[in-house]
């Protein structure tokens, strides 16, 4: 009887039978359940965040009409919904929630990929200076986009900013990798130190830009420092979404390779992985997603460390589940933090970066203390 059931399940889902035979040591069912649960939780948080704010809206009545409106591209206000509620949700909260979801997913997945690539739980785009590089690229366009760089600006339109941030992030990541890796072995100590140096350098260059910026540009620039989803609109969403969505779609293909990389670069090659190609693809994706996130939301720290680490503690380090689960948990956490940011001191707003840093920095220290001596950080 049980055999028959097992056989039928093998036939139905040929790839999932990997888990069937294990008794002990199999964390896959747990990981699969957790990922599904997180997906559902993310949806719940999104809906809750749409409902929460200074203006109370009947969100459950609105949801069906919203999906109709979004799918039909009909911009009219449907019957039975107050125009005020409709505008608050559709033009203010929804783009912000969606942007929060994308940025949260991008940051968490970037962190998970970078940690897998550098084989260290403390690697993160924010810590090794990739975000600073992306911030510099963005600042370059905010300050010089109207003058020196205006031809590029006209050519690329709303994509100029995220692309500049992407280029800045990519260049920093490549430099870091070149500096930190010798004869195929990445030294994490060198990497972190180089990250600090590169972060300081790009910070200084951003400082130069701040020095020549006018008042409006200064206001724009300020939000890189703290990170915020304030001012989200459909245009910002449209500028960041393609890069981040492309990364989220492609990243599952890295999972097998990143799993192999847990054994070390040499052993990953021994079991059939093209390691150099894996590294290149990972770097490209991390730089792209980090750049696009930084371009629309500034420097939101610690999501990339906290989320993958929490997940590894519960579902284990298997990247086939870690990457999607990180995307969901990152999205849910960032939307929750943003909801907090815009309600805690209402009608004013806290930059979300302050909240993630307040929650994330102590967590980072806790990882350091917990892991000290357990896993070498050499």
């Amino acid at each position, binding site marked *: 009887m049980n055999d028959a059931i097992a056989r039928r399940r093998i036939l139905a889902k040929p790839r999932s039978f990997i888990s069937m035979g294990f008794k*002990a040591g199999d964390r896959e069912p747990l990981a699969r359940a957790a990922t599904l649960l997180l997906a559902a939780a993310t949806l719940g948080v999104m809906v809750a965040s749409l409902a929460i704010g200074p203006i109370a809206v009947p969100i459950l009545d609105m949801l069906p009409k919203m999906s109709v409106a979004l799918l039909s591209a009909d911009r009219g206000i449907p019957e039975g919904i107050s125009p005020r509620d409709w505008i608050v949700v559709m033009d203010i909260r929804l783009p912000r929630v969606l942007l929060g979801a994308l940025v949260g997913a991008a940051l968490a997945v970037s962190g998970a990929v970078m940690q897998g690539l550098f084989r260290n739980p403390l690697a993160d785009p924010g810590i090794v200076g990739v975000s600073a590089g992306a911030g510099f690229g963005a600042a370059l366009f905010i300050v010089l986009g109207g003058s020196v760089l205006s031809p590029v600006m006209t050519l690329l339109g709303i994509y100029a900013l995220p692309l500049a941030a992407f280029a800045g992030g990519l260049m920093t990541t490549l430099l870091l990798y070149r500096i930190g890796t010798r*004869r195929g072995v990445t030294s994490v100590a060198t990497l972190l130190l180089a990250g600090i140096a590169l972060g300081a350098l790009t910070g200084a260059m951003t400082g130069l830009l701040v020095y020549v910026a006018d008042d409006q540009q200064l206001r724009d620039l300020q939000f890189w420092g703290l990170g915020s989803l304030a001012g989200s609109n459909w245009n910002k969403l449209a500028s960041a979404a393609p890069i981040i969505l492309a990364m989220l779609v492609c990243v599952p293909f890295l999972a097998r390779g990143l799993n192999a990389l*847990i054994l070390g670069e*040499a052993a990953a*090659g021994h*079991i059939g*992985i093209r390691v150099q190609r894996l590294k290149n693809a990972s770097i490209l994706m991390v730089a792209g997603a980090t750049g696009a996130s930084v371009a629309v939301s500034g420097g939101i720290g610690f999501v990339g460390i906290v989320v993958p680490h929490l997940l590894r503690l519960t579902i*284990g380090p298997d990247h086939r589940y870690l990457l999607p689960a990180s995307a969901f948990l990152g999205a849910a956490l960032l939307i929750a933090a943003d909801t907090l940011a815009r309600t805690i001191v209402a009608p004013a707003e806290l930059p979300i970066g302050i909240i993630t840093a307040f929650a994330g920095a102590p967590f980072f220290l806790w990882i350091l203390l917990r892991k000290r001596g357990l896993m*070498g950080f050499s």
Partner: protein
Amino acid sequence: MTLLNRSTDPEKETLLLISGVGVNAGRIEIVKEVSFSAVAGEVLAIIGPSGSGKTTLMRAMTGESAYRGSIKLAGRQVRELDPGAQADLRGVLPQNSQISFPLNVTEVVSLGFLCHRPERVDRGPRVREALAKVGLNGFEGRIYQDLSGGEQQRVQLARVLVQVWDPVPMDGPAHWLFLDEPVSSLDIKHQYQIMQLARDYADSGGGVVTVMHDLNLTLAFADKVLVMKDGYGLAFGRREEVMTAELLSTAYDFPLKMTANENGEDPLVTPERFRSRP
């Protein structure tokens, strides 16, 4: 029916041919000139003092390092094979067995399936069988980092075994095990157990190439021996031809003698001027 496809050319089926191989690490020439051949069904041990180029030679054979000369595995030049094709032919047990994230034992061993097509085997039982072979029954759910060095080494060996489980697969050339000091972190029981496992793999038709430090284990388990010294192959041949007191003393720059019991069996290598305390 697959037997019909089997080519009869031994070079394509059972041979590892190394000729005129040199390997650099940076600008330093570590392996200068080595030639030898190994055949599936035998255990080949590579011995020699530290720094003589054993591990570097191993890296060239496993596709990690660029090399001069020719390394042909199953009739194909190793540098022309992509990692997937090499992974189909041979498993590699590296010296270093550290891993970066807390996988459990089952997950580590399952990484050996990575290059397999998913439908091939029932993986759970195969993992348990591999763990049983290396003497780790009941370790499936243990976190790798919590194990001792010797246990970690045996988990890694189980991973290598599931990668090239059948010494002679139905549809291809013989499988190979490349082992870099497989027993140096093990206690004596597990040293013999693991070497016996390699021995059995060879007896079933697979190829085994292993870097060894322990000369007595080499005497007990190897068929052929390659002696490295200063980046050159000092001697290569059958164990009984190569493992002589004179040659080993030259190789290690240290006077060694061979002793055996009254019937000439169970030879042992010991230092020439060494007396154990009474």
